[in-house]
């Protein structure tokens, strides 16, 4: 254990470098936030100071089952947003072993960007045993990325099953990634992911069955959509970038709709 005075000094020094735009300070503050526990109160109050007066970022959650293509979509969105001149950060979450606490964080395998590009930031985080598909301090880490000045923050959840819904509380817009032939209609009718999604992306739409999957999702959602209308369903192929532009358009529309509906 260190003495509290030196810990406070260290935080102060990091905050100063953070304000000056030092990416390493951001990386280190994320680690401290991720560790949480013995200094979370200090971190949270520091966050309030850092975030004061900053524009808020568009926060987009990417969720879906393991292997659906969440990382590949994140990579495609990073390319799309950088091409549009927007800076973007990605928080990529993977599960940690409940037994050893260890984790294999492999999202970077799919994510390529120019290492000289200061407009991108990618951070891999283990859930450290938290339920819900996100690490316990995900909201605070997202606020850090926002306060650092990224225009857009992408949050990729762990491969989510049916009730890992923590992303709803962190993101402005949630994109659910599904794949063709991922189950019959009854799977979609189970409560959970489909209800928290704002936009549904049928990925790998170059595979057979994509049209049928999209059509059955639309039908399902028409039944439950009501007056608000149903969530949009879009076919994409994240690996090639096909449909990603259309998907982003839907994300922006969903953001406007949601900010109208939530005071």
């Amino acid at each position, binding site marked *: 254990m260190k003495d509290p005075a030196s810990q406070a000094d260290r935080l102060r020094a990091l905050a100063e470098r953070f304000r000056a735009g030092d990416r390493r300070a951001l990386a280190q503050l994320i*680690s*401290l936030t991720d560790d949480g526990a013995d200094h979370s109160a200090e971190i949270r109050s520091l966050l309030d100071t850092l975030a004061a007066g900053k524009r808020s970022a568009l926060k987009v959650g990417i969720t879906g089952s393991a292997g659906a293509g969440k990382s590949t979509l994140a990579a495609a969105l990073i390319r799309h947003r950088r091409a549009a001149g927007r800076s973007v950060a990605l928080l990529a979450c993977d599960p940690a072993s409940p037994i050893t606490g260890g*984790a*294999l*964080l492999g999202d970077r395998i799919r994510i390529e960007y120019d*290492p000289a590009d200061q407009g991108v930031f990618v951070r*891999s985080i283990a859930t450290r045993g938290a339920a819900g598909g996100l690490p316990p301090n995900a909201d605070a880490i997202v606020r850090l990325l926002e306060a650092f000045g990224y225009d857009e923050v992408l949050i990729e959840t762990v491969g989510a099953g049916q009730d890992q819904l923590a992303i709803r509380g962190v993101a402005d817009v949630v994109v659910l990634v599904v794949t063709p032939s991922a189950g019959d209609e009854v799977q979609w009718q189970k409560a959970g992911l489909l209800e928290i999604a704002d936009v549904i992306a049928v990925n790998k739409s170059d595979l057979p069955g994509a049209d049928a999957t999209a059509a059955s999702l639309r039908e399902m959602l028409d039944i439950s959509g009501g007056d608000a209308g149903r969530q949009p369903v879009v076919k994409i192929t994240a690996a090639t970038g096909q449909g990603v532009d259309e998907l982003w358009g839907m994300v922006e529309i969903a953001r406007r709709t949601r900010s109208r509906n939530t005071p």
Partner: protein
Amino acid sequence: MTDRPIRVVLAKLGLDGHDRGIRVVARVLRDAGMEVIYTGLWQTARHVARAVADEDADTVGISLLSGAHLTLVPDLIDALRAEGVGHVPVVIGGIVPDGDVPVLEKMGVARVLGPGTTLERIVGSFRELAAASRAGQRR
């Protein structure tokens, strides 16, 4: 910060597609309770350095079976310094002739683990180096 997991970036540097070894190491470090960020094949020195910096890694492990270590490692050391993470210990694994080991160490490599290194020694090496790296950073 009491017991936070050790964070390790593992990468294949340069044109070398032999990843069986590094994947075994990734798995073993994971099972030892570490958070392993595997960046995959064909990484450049600057990609690896950027990952080490942004992921706030405690150590970095590089697998090299291509014989290009004397060219690629100095690039990596430079790139790590340029990213402000020159203090992060570098472990090299793979095929390195005995005579090159002191050369790499002189360049700043913390440890070279060749064929036949036990998994136990690999885990121990990452643990020791991470502990030293953290202690040094906190001062």
